[in-house]
C-alpha cells in the first residue's frame, strides 16, 4: 500500500492490525480495522470484553511499545500518519491533539500527586507557561467539569475524591490542552447510573464547546445510543458492523449485533419473558476461526453452506454509511431481523 494518500477525514484508520507475541502465540487483538471520524462527531465502539476495543484506542494513542506490539496499517490524524511516525512525534501529539480517559479513574491517576499537580503537569508539557498560570488553568478546568469549589479541591489527592469526581478530574486532565480527539475507554463502567448520567451529559456539553471528535468505547449499548452519532461493533478484533446509531438500533444487519440487542433487558420495552443470549463465548484471539469469527456462535451460520467457516466476510456497504461483514445475503438478513428478531425484543 505504498500509494496511501492522506484522507480528507479528520481521523482515519485503515486496515489497522495490532498483535502481541506471547508465550502461546500471536494474539491478534486488532485484525484489520478500518474506520473514519470527523470533528465534532462521536463514534461509539461496542463489543464484548476482549474484542479489541482498548487495544484499538491505545494503538491510536501510540501507547504501545513497539517492541512488544506488532502494529501495521495506517492511522491518519488531521493529515498526519501515526503508525510510521517516530515515537517522539506521536508523544507530542498525545495530550495536545489527542487525549484519553480511562475506565478506572482511581488507578489511572498517580496516587502520590494532587489532582491539580497532575493537570498542571499535563498542561505544562505542551504549553510554555509558568506554574501559577498552569494552576489557574487547572482550577479553571476543574470548574468546567463541574467540580464544586475547584480552588480548594485542586490540592486534594485522587483518593480524596469520589468516583464521579475522579472521572471528572480525569476528563479535566484530558481536556486541559483542548485536544481535537478525545478517546474515552469505558469512562462510566465503574460508576453508578446516576453519576454515569452526569458524566455523559458533561461529555456531550464539552463536545459542543470544544467541537472535538470523540471515540466512546463501551459495552453498554445504552450509552452508545445516548451519546454517539456513529457506531462500530467489534468482534474478535474485527469490525462486524459500522453504521449511524439510527441504523444500528433500528436496522442492524449483523447477527452479532442482533445478539447484543437480544441479550439486553430493556426498560423502554415491555418486559419480555426471556432474553435471547448469544450462545457460547468469544473465541481465543490466538486461534481465531479462519472464516467469519462469529460463525461458531452464529445461529444463522448454517444458512451459508459453510462459507462462514472457510471464507472471511468483508465489510460491505448495505446502505449509506452502513457497512456490515456477513456472508448472508442482505435481503435474507433484513427478513430475519424483521420477522424473527424484532418481534421478540
Amino acid at each position: 500500500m505504498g500509494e496511501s494518500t492522506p484522507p480528507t477525514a479528520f481521523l482515519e484508520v485503515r486496515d489497522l492490525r495490532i498483535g502481541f507475541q506471547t508465550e502461546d502465540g500471536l494474539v491478534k487483538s486488532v485484525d484489520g480495522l478500518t474506520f473514519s471520524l470527523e470533528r465534532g462527531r462521536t463514534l461509539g465502539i461496542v463489543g464484548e470484553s476482549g474484542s479489541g476495543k482498548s487495544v484499538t484506542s491505545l494503538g491510536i494513542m501510540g501507547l504501545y511499545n513497539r517492541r512488544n506490539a506488532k502494529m501495521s496499517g495506517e492511522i491518519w490524524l488531521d493529515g498526519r500518519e501515526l503508525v510510521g511516525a517516530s515515537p517522539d512525534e506521536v508523544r507530542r501529539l498525545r495530550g495536545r491533539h489527542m487525549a484519553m480517559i480511562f475506565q478506572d479513574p482511581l488507578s489511572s491517576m498517580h496516587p502520590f500527586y494532587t489532582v491539580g499537580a497532575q493537570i498542571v503537569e499535563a498542561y505544562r508539557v505542551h504549553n510554555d507557561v509558568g506554574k501559577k498560570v498552569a494552576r489557574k488553568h487547572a482550577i479553571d478546568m476543574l470548574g468546567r467539569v463541574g467540580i464544586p469549589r475547584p480552588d480548594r479541591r485542586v490540592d486534594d489527592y485522587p483518593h480524596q475524591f469520589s468516583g464521579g469526581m475522579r472521572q471528572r478530574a480525569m476528563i479535566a486532565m484530558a481536556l486541559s490542552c483542548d485536544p481535537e480527539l478525545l478517546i474515552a475507554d469505558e469512562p462510566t463502567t465503574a460508576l453508578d447510573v446516576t453519576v454515569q448520567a452526569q458524566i455523559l451529559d458533561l461529555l456531550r456539553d464539552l463536545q459542543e464547546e470544544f467541537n472535538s471528535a470523540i471515540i466512546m468505547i463501551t459495552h453498554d449499548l445504552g450509552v452508545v445510543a445516548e451519546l454517539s452519532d456513529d457506531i462500530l461493533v467489534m468482534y474478535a478484533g474485527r469490525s462486524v458492523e459500522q453504521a449511524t446509531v439510527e441504523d444500528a438500533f433500528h436496522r442492524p444487519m449483523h447477527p452479532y449485533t442482533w445478539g447484543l440487542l437480544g441479550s439486553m433487558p430493556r426498560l423502554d420495552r415491555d418486559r419480555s419473558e426471556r432474553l435471547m443470549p448469544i450462545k457460547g463465548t468469544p473465541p481465543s484471539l490466538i486461534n481465531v476461526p479462519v472464516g467469519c469469527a462469529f460463525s461458531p456462535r452464529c445461529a444463522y451460520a448454517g444458512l451459508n453452506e459453510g462459507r462462514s467457516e472457510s471464507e472471511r466476510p468483508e465489510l460491505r456497504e448495505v446502505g449509506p454509511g452502513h457497512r456490515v461483514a456477513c456472508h448472508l445475503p442482505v435481503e435474507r438478513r433484513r427478513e430475519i431481523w424483521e420477522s424473527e428478531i424484532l418481534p421478540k425484543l
Partner: protein
Amino acid sequence: MIAFLVRRLIGAVALLVIISMVTFGIFFLLPKAAGVSSDDLASRFAGKSPTPETVQAIKERFGFDDPVPIQYGRFVKAIVAGDEYDTGTTVIECPAPCLGYSFRTNTSVMDQLIDRIPVTLSLVVGAAVIWVLVGVSVGVLSALRRGSVFDRAAMAVALAGVSLPIFFTGLLSLTFVVHAWDLLPPVSYHPFLDNPLEWASALILPWITLAFLYAAMYARLTRAGMLETMNEDYIRTARAKGLPERTVITRHALRATLTPLLTIFGLDLGLLLGGAVLTEQTFSLKGLGALSLDGVIGSDLPVVLGTVMVAALFIVLANLIVDLLYGAIDPRVRHS
C-alpha cells in the same frame, strides 16, 4: 498524628521489654538448662585461675543465685533509675539509662555503646548511600532494558552478590585491594569530624563490600518493582498526557516503585545499625557488631544485653521513621 506517635512509641517500648526478656532468658536460662551452674557462670568473669572465693564474690555481685526474675528486675531498674557499681575501690555511678556495667572490661556498657555507635553508623550509612544509589539505578536500568545484555549481566552480578558470604568477599578484597595492589589505605575508623577525607578513604572498602550484598538485593527488588509499576494504569495516563519518557520514569514510576522499598530499607538499616557483625569482624572495625560478638563470645552478659537492646532500639526507630516518612510520601497513608 500525636496519637499515632504515642501508640507507636508504646509499642516500641513493649517490643524492647520483650526483647530484653528474651535475651535475658537466652543468656541466663539457657546455660542453666544446659547444665551451667551459677558458679560456672561466675567463673566466666573471673580470669585465669580464680579461687572459689573469687567465684563467690562475683556471684554475689551479679546476684547469680537470685531467681532470674529478680535479676531481670535489677536490670530494668538500672535502665530506669540508674545504678551504681562497686568496683572494689570506688563506687561507679551509672546514671539512667544505665545498661549495666561490664566486669570483663570494667567499663559502663553505655560508654562502650556510645563509643562504638559512630563506627557502625559510619559504616552503615556510607554503605547504604552506595547501595541505594547503585542498587536502584541498576534495577531501574535493568527493568527498562528488560531482557537486554545489560539486564542479564546486572542480574547475574546481583545474584552473585546475594550468593557470596560477606566475609569471603570482604577478606579477599582486603587482601587484593589494600595489600596486593595498594589501591586503598588499610581499613580503619577515623572520626568524621577529625578528617572527613581520611574517614571516607579508610572506610571505602567495607562500604563497597557491604553495599555489594545489599545493592544486589536492591537492584533485584527495584527491578521487580519497576516492572510492576510500569504496568500501572497511571503510567499509561502519564504517557497519554504526552509526558516525555524520562519524566514518566523519574516522576511517576520511580516514586511509586521506591515507596514500598522504603519499608525494607528501614528494616535493613535498623538491623545493620544494631551491628554489622560479619562486616565489622571481617574488617576489624570496632563497631556495635564487634562489641556484641565480643560480648557473646566472652559471655559478657551486660554487654550482650546492651547491644541487643540498642540493636532493637535501632530497628524500632527505623521502623517508626519509615512509617512517618511513609505518611509524608504516600498521601493515602496520611489521610487514613
